[in-house]
C-alpha cells in the first residue's frame, strides 16, 4: 500500500482534529472514542493478475462514520480489452457488507457501494461490528483476448463523520441510559442483534418512541422494529414495526392507535430496554426519542405571550390583581362590579410531551373540561373593600376546544386581590386530568403566592416582599420597634391581600408597621391631612370613610365562607378616625379620648380647628387664617394621632408636649413669645411608646 502525498497531508489534518476533539470532549472520551470532526480520504494503488485477489485494505470504520470506496483502473491497453473485477467491503468477520462486480476495460471508474443500492449509500457505520466496514478487497477474474494483465487500480477510501450516530449499546449489558425527549441517531444492519438503549419508566407511566427512519434504496425496504424489554431482558412489547425504502417514514403513524405503540409500565418504576432492529435490509438512518404519553397540562398566561412551541406557565409569577410587569395593583373594579379588570389572565389546556412542547391531543379528543375547585370566597375584594362573598375566581368557559395550535383557552376572571383556587381540567376518556393551584403556593402553603408581592403606596413600589413561608396569621412587623410590641394588627395574609386606600389597592409590607387614618379634615395643607404625624416612622395611609369598617376596623372583610375559611389569626385592627370638631368645648385644640392601643377605640379623635384659629395670634379670629394657624393645626394633628398610637404626653417640647408653649413672661422679655415655639418633632421617648396592636 502506498500513501499519496495528498493522503498524508489529510492524515495529519485528521490527527490534529482528533486531538482537538479529544480535548474538547474529554468527558465523553472516557466513555467512547471521539468522532472525527471532518471527513478523511485515503488512496491506495495495486495491480492484479488473472483470478487474483488483493490484500485487504483497511477501512476501520467507526460507528459514527459512513464510507464509500472509489476505484479508478485499467485492465488493458487495447480499446477492446477488459477484465471481470469485483470490489467488496467486508466486516471484521470477513462477511460481505457491500459488493460491486464490474467489467474494467482500457479505463474504468466505479465505487462500492454504488448509489441507490441495498447496502445503502454511503455505506453506514453501525453500532455492532456485524454491520461495520473493516476492510475492502479487490478481485480480478478472467481477462478477455485483448485484455493485458495485470489490471492496475487506485482506491480512494472516503469516510464521512456523522456526529451523534450509533451511541446505543450492542446488547442489554452496555445499553446507555437515555433521557426522554433526547433524540438518538443511528443505522442498524440486519445482521446486528440490534441497537440497545435503556430508559427509566415510572410506575404506571406510558412511553412510546417517536421519530423516523428510512431504508437503503428505492428497491429495497427495511423492516424497522423497536421492542421493549424489562430488566430481566424479557420482551414486553413490540411498539414500532414499520417498512421504509429510501424515503423517510415517521413513526408512530399519524393515525395509529396509541394502544399499539405505547408501552405502559404496570409494575414499579425501573429501567427498561429498547431494542432497535432492522429486518431484511439495513435501516440506513433512524432518529427517534422516547417520550411518555402526551399528558393534559394546564398553563396560565398573565402577560399574553404564551408560545405553544416553548410553553411556559405564568402561575409562578401570578399575583391576583397585580400587573405582572410593574407589580402594582390593577385599578379597582368599576362601580357595581367585583371584576378586577385590566389584566388578561388566560387558562390554557394542552397536551404536552414530557420534553415540554405542546403536542396534538389524542385522536378523538377535541375538548377539555375546566372547573375551579377549592375556590375562596373572601368578603369583598380586599381587606376593607366590599362585602360580597361570591367566588373569587371565575372561568368564562367550562369547555375549551383545542385549536390549530393544539391549545384550548379561556379567560380567568379575578374577583379578589387575594383569591385562591385550583383549576382542574379533564379531557378524553379515562383519568386524563390536570390541576393548577392559583396562585402557586408551595412555600409555606400559606395562601400567599410564592412569587411574593410588591408593597405599594401612592402608585409607587416601596418594597418587594418575598414569601418566606410565614403562617397566614403571623403579625410580626418590627419596625419601628416602638414599645416592643411587634405587629400592626394586619396579619401576613392580610398584608398580601391588601387594603384599599383612597380608591387605590395597596399591598403592604409585613415588616413595617402600617397606620391607617381616616379624616374629614381636607388635605389643603398637602400633608394628607396627617399634619406632623406625617413624620412618624410608620407607613401611613389616609383612607376614605367608606374604606373603614364598623368600629373603625381596617380589615373587616376577613370572612371567607369559601374554601379555607376565615383569615387565621385575624385581629380587629382599627384605623384612627379623625374628625373636624369645629370649635369644640373651647378649652383645648383636640381630643383623643383614649390612649391606645391596646385600649380599643370607640370614639373619633377630634381636632378643633376653629378654636385653633381663634386661639392663635394675633386677632383671635376663627375665620381669618393667620400665621400660626397652620403650624398649630399640624402639631395638633400629630399630637392627637400620637395619642392614637399610644404616645403619652411628654414634658419635653415635642409634638406630644402637654402645655405647648413657653409661657410668655412679661417681666422677662428674653423668653420666647408664645406660639413661636410650636414643636414639630417627636423625640426618642415619644417614638419608644409607639404601639399599633
Amino acid at each position, binding site marked *: 500500500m502506498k500513501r499519496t502525498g495528498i493522503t498524508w497531508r489529510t492524515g495529519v489534518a485528521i490527527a490534529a482534529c482528533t486531538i482537538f476533539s479529544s480535548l474538547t470532549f474529554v468527558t465523553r472520551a472516557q466513555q467512547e472514542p471521539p468522532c472525527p470532526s471532518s471527513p478523511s480520504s485515503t488512496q491506495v494503488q495495486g495491480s492484479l493478475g488473472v483470478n487474483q485477489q488483493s490484500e485487504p485494505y483497511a477501512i476501520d470504520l467507526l460507528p459514527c462514520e459512513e464510507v464509500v470506496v472509489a476505484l479508478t483502473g485499467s485492465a488493458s491497453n487495447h480499446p477492446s480489452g477488459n477484465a471481470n473485477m469485483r470490489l467488496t467491503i467486508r466486516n471484521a468477520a470477513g462477511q460481505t457488507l457491500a459488493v460491486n462486480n464490474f467489467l474494467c476495460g482500457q479505463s474504468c471508474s466505479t465505487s462500492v457501494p454504488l448509489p441507490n443500492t441495498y447496502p445503502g449509500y454511503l455505506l453506514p457505520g453501525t453500532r455492532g461490528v456485524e454491520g461495520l466496514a473493516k476492510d475492502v478487497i479487490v478481485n480480478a477474474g478472467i481477462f478477455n483476448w485483448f485484455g493485458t494483465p495485470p489490471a492496475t487500480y487506485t482506491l480512494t477510501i472516503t469516510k464521512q463523520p456523522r456526529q451523534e450516530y450509533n451511541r446505543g449499546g450492542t446488547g442489554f449489558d452496555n445499553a446507555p441510559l437515555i433521557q426522554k425527549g433526547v433524540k438518538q441517531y443511528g443505522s442498524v444492519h440486519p445482521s446486528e442483534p440490534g441497537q440497545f438503549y435503556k430508559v427509566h419508566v415510572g410506575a404506571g407511566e406510558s412511553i412510546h418512541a417517536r421519530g423516523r427512519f428510512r431504508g437503503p434504496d428505492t428497491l429495497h425496504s427495511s423492516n424497522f422494529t423497536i421492542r421493549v424489554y424489562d430488566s430481566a431482558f424479557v420482551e414486553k412489547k413490540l411498539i414500532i414495526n414499520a417498512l421504509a425504502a429510501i424515503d423517510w417514514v415517521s413513526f408512530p403513524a399519524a393515525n395509529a392507535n396509541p394502544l399499539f405503540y405505547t408501552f405502559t409500565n404496570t409494575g414499579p418504576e425501573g429501567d427498561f430496554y429498547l431494542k432497535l432492529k432492522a429486518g431484511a435490509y439495513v435501516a440506513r438512518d433512524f432518529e427517534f426519542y422516547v417520550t411518555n404519553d402526551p399528558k393534559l397540562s394546564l398553563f396560565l398566561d398573565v402577560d399574553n405571550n404564551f408560545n405553544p412551541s416553548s410553553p411556559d406557565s405564568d402561575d409562578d409569577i401570578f399575583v391576583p390583581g397585580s400587573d405582572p410587569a410593574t407589580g402594582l395593583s390593577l385599578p379597582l373594579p368599576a362601580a357595581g362590579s367585583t371584576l378586577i379588570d385590566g389584566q388578561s389572565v388566560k387558562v390554557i389546556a394542552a397536551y404536552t410531551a414530557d420534553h415540554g412542547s405542546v403536542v396534538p391531543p389524542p385522536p378523538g379528543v377535541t375538548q377539555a373540561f375546566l372547573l375551579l375547585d377549592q375556590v375562596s370566597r373572601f368578603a369583598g375584594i380586599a381587606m376593607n373593600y366590599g362585602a360580597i362573598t361570591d367566588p373569587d375566581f371565575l372561568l368564562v368557559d367550562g369547555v375549551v376546544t383545542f385549536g390549530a395550535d393544539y391549545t384550548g383557552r379561556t379567560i380567568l376572571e379575578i374577583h379578589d386581590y387575594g383569591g385562591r383556587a385550583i383549576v382542574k381540567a379533564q379531557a378524553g376518556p379515562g383519568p386524563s386530568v390536570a390541576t393548577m393551584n392559583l396562585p402557586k403556593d408551595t412555600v409555606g402553603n400559606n395562601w400567599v403566592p410564592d412569587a411574593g408581592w410588591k408593597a405599594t*403606596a*401612592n*402608585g*409607587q413600589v*416601596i418594597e418587594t416582599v418575598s414569601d418566606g413561608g410565614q403562617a397566614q396569621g403571623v403579625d410580626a412587623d418590627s*419596625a419601628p420597634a416602638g414599645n416592643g410590641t411587634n405587629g400592626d394588627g394586619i396579619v401576613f395574609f392580610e398584608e398580601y391581600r391588601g387594603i384599599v386606600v383612597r*380608591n387605590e389597592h395597596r399591598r403592604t409590607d409585613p415588616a*413595617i408597621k402600617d397606620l391607617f387614618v*381616616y379624616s*374629614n*379634615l*381636607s*388635605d*389643603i*395643607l*398637602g*400633608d*394628607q391631612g396627617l399634619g406632623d404625624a*406625617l413624620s412618624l*416612622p*410608620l*407607613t*401611613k395611609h389616609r383612607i*376614605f*370613610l*367608606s374604606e373603614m369598617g*364598623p368600629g373603625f376596623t381596617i380589615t373587616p372583610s376577613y370572612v371567607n365562607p369559601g374554601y379555607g375559611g376565615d383569615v387565621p389569626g385575624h385581629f380587629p385592627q382599627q384605623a384612627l378616625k379623625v*374628625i*373636624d*370638631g*369645629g*370649635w*369644640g*368645648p*373651647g*378649652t*383645648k385644640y383636640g*381630643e383623643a*379620648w383614649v390612649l391606645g392601643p391596646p385600649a380599643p377605640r370607640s*370614639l*373619633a379623635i*377630634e381636632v*378643633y380647628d*376653629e378654636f385653633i384659629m*381663634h386661639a392663635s395670634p394675633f386677632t383671635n379670629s*376663627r375665620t*381669618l*387664617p*393667620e400665621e400660626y*394657624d*397652620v403650624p398649630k393645626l399640624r402639631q395638633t394633628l400629630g399630637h392627637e394621632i400620637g395619642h392614637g398610637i399610644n404616645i403619652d404626653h411628654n414634658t419635653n417640647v415635642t409634638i406630644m408636649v*402637654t*402645655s405647648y*408653649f413657653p*409661657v*410668655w*413672661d*412679661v*417681666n422677662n422679655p428674653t423668653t420666647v413669645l*408664645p406660639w413661636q415655639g410650636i414643636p414639630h418633632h417627636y423625640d426618642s421617648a415619644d417614638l419608644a411608646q409607639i404601639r399599633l396592636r
Partner: protein
Amino acid sequence: MTSTTAVVTILALLIAQAAPARRVKVRVFVSLSEYYGTIYVRPPSNGADHVLLRGQPLSTRLSIVNDGEDQEVRLRPSQSAPFKVQVVAEGSAKPLAQGVVAQSAFLRAGSLQKPGGLPTTLKQRESLQWDATVPAFQQLPAGLYRVKADAQVESTIGGPPEVNNDHLVIELRDVTGQAERVELMRVNATRAFRNGNLTQTEAAAQQLLAAYPQSAFAYMLIGDVAKARNDASAARAAYIRASELLRGRGDTLFTAVATDHQISETIDALELRISSLGR
C-alpha cells in the same frame, strides 16, 4: 437593620407617601360647620360622630377640594344646587329631612378665604365650601341619624368627584335632665363667644351659673370675655375659680362624665390661660 439602612428606609417611605402620583383629584368632604363638643353629657355613642341636643342647630360644611398635584380643575354644577343633603335614620334609606344649601360659597386658597361659587376653577389645594342647614332636624325623634350629602358637580376631568366622606352620623338627644339643660346653656354661651358677642356670652354664662353654680366652664367663659376686654384681673379671678372647681371636683356634672385625663387637660388649659395673662 443598621441605622443607615433604617434612615434610608424611613426616608423612602416618607418620600413614597409625600409624593403621590401626579393626578388630579377632586374630593368631597362633609363636616359640621358648628360644633362645641361635649362637656356635661356623654360623648357620642353607637358610632356617632357628634352629639347634638335638641335645640342645637344642625349645620354642615360641604367642601370640594382639588387634592391633586398641579393641575387646575374646572367645576360646574350638574343640578341647580351643588349638593343634595338628606337626613336618614341610621340603618335606613328613607329620607326624613332635607337640607338647605346656602347659595353663597367660600373659596379657600391657602390663607385666603373669599366669596366663591360655581362655575369656578380650583387650583391645587383650593377648596370651595358651602354651608347647609337642616331645619327639620329638630323635629325628629331622638336617635342616630345619617346626614348625607351628594355632590351635584361636574368637573373637567370627568366623572363625579371622589368621596372622602359623604356623610356624618349625628346623635340627637332630648334635653331630659339637668346635665342636658346645663350642656345646652354651655353650648349657647360658647356659641356667643365664638361669634364674638361678648355681652351675650357673659349673659349666657351668668345664666348657666344661675342654673348650675359649680360650672367651671361658665367661669372659663367669663374669664375669656374678661381677657378679650383686656381685663386681666377679672380674667385671672374667673380662671382661678374655674380651676379650683375642677381641682376640687366641684364641677360634679363634668367630673361625672369626664376622664381624669380630660380633667387634667382642662386644668392645664386654665393654667395656660392664667399664665398668658402675665403677672
